[in-house]
């Protein structure tokens, strides 16, 4: 049986980000792309599930950057059996979550997996997270903020993190969709020499797809928040400093 992992490349927020002259997107020429960190956890969780159950992991991605191959080859090197890349007239665009889900649904239906895993969120999913969106379109049960899962007797048991360490354990009938926050263990390391070997020996299946409606998120303008800059120095006696600290925390609902 099959477990699908959806993997996405996103602008690297470690780099400085600039806004394009249009004002509605990043300056894509200046952006560097990295794998969405949560998708890496989704892959790890899928591999762990598959190792226990004998399922086959298929990595699927939409290539909006022209650079998705590296990500998919790495997934193959880590243990995915197949990698499928969707390409089309959307390179360099900011794909909305809704559009991404519409592109993915037919592929997922064709693969007929018992689980779809993807990262809990991405730095650019303005119109909502992918996992619940996919679940809505597929009509499958789902949970996200997942921090652990197990396949038992035709259901998947998932641990979903709420807050303050409280977790919710759910049992979902299959097929189901999971948005992974953290795999049970840190994503494994695969040496580059293995990735390079896979690049020589394995191949990525490429499918040309039509750009769907609502391709990009509806943004009026992007802007950079005002920089706080360096620390604002609190002055006065220790008592006055303590008062200010408490005030600051109260104002932010931290006390």
């Amino acid at each position, binding site marked *: 049986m099959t477990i699908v992992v959806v993997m996405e490349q996103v602008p690297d927020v470690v*780099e400085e980000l600039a806004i394009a002259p249009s004002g509605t997107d990043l300056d894509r020429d200046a952006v560097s792309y*990295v794998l969405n960190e949560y998708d890496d956890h989704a892959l790890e969780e899928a591999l762990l599930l598959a190792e226990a159950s004998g399922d086959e992991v298929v990595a699927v991605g939409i290539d909006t950057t022209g650079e998705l191959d590296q990500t998919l080859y790495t997934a193959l090197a880590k243990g995915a059996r197949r990698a499928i890349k969707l390409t089309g007239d959307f390179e360099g665009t900011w794909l909305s979550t809704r559009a991404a889900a519409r592109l993915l649904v037919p592929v997922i239906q064709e693969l007929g997996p018992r689980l779809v895993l993807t990262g809990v969120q991405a730095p650019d999913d303005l119109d909502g997270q992918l996992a619940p969106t996919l679940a809505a379109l597929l009509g499958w049960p789902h949970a996200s903020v997942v921090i652990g899962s197990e396949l038992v007797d035709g259901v998947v048991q998932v641990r979903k993190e709420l807050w303050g360490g409280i977790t919710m354990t759910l049992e979902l009938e299959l097929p189901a969709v999971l948005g992974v926050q953290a795999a049970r263990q840190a994503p*494994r390391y695969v*040496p*580059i*020499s*293995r990735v390079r070997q896979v690049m020589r020996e394995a191949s990525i299946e490429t499918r040309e797809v039509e750009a769907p409606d609502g391709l990009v998120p509806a943004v009026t303008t992007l802007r950079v928040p005002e920089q706080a800059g360096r620390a604002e120095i609190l002055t006065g006696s220790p008592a006055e400093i303590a008062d200010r600290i408490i005030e600051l925390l109260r104002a932010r609902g931290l006390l």
Partner: protein
Amino acid sequence: MDPSLKKVAEVWERETAIVEGMDISGPWNRMFGQRVIWDYSPDLIEEIAQLPGAESFAWCYQCGKCVPVCPVDVVGDYGPRKLYRRAQTGINLLDSPDLWLCTTCANCLRVCPKLVDMVQIMPAAREHAMLTGRAIPAELQEALENTAIYGNPLGQPARKREAWVKDAGVPVPILHQIQRPVEWLWWVECYPSYHPRGIDASIALARIFNALGLDFAILGREEKCAGDSQRLAGERGLFEMLAEENIRTLAKYEFRHIVVTDPHALNAFRKHYPKLGGQYDVWHYTTLLARELPKLQPLLTKSLPYRVTFHDPCYLGRHNGEYDAPRQLIQALPGVEFVEMLRCRENSYCCGGGGGGMWLDSFAAGHQRRRLSEERVLEAVSTGADTLVVCCPYEVSRFEDAAKSTGVEGRLRVRDIAELLAEAMGLIGEDAA
């Protein structure tokens, strides 16, 4: 055939033997028989020795010479002899923390009669561990992932690699901007580009180069980590990827020589880039500055009232044979009194940062009484020196941190040679660092 070389064909063990009236009966004469010792399975030794590069692991004959010179044994329980012995007793190196503790300092190789070479064994064994899906320490994994994504182990944006230049106060030409041939291509490397204390040394060196009128330029954002320590940590594939990219970048520009800040880069360019098609004339900056001493000496006008000692970086000294240049530079500093540590030159101690140790800090500390860097700063202090001079970019941060954690920070400052030279030239203030 020399009869003494003839094999004993048959041995009788007599029940009694009386020689010149003396009864010497006993099992003594069994020593002439051939014995095969099957006490220990050689399998785990073979598993390592069959890896390309790791053959010499099996050559050890347990003489023990390597143990007292191993810097890790000084603060722990280590050395090739012990690793071999542990493999005999059933401990698989591939699954043991021992796999990550060797800094590839090469001090054992210097004394080993059998040429057991940890500098080759370790990367081969580590790569094998990774390829067979064994977990690697998280700190190291992050450094490797960062290097693959950003081209530096710190995970800093590639574009910021040249950001330090604007604080240099002197021109630091960048090749993609100037588009002209230069005499010296300065390979700055990662820590000197990004780490605050590394940047201090880079600025000092930039000012010295300018004062000497050297025709130089850097690659800036196009430079990626030379990758030597990643290779030694077991990531040969990552090393090759970086080397191929760096070689392509270097091919775009015209220059005569490369000067490197980092001895690890020196090692990579000298010994490993040529195999991948990158042939360069590479110098460590101390070698270059020592050659320029006639020009440099008159510029060293300020007297520095310091008592200094010097730490030989493993990858400059033992690995690449440069012991004298740094010493010539130190001795040229007016006012400076130079004292050697007991462990110096060929027998120098190791800072602990090599071979991936830079990214195994907490991991290693969990298996050692104290860090190698801490052992070393205490040795430096014991000479009565007030300044520990270094010339490898891993070391300023490591030793400054170690001086803090051993409580000698008030007594020992850590300075790059470039910083001291620049200070004596009046190019930086005393507390610029």
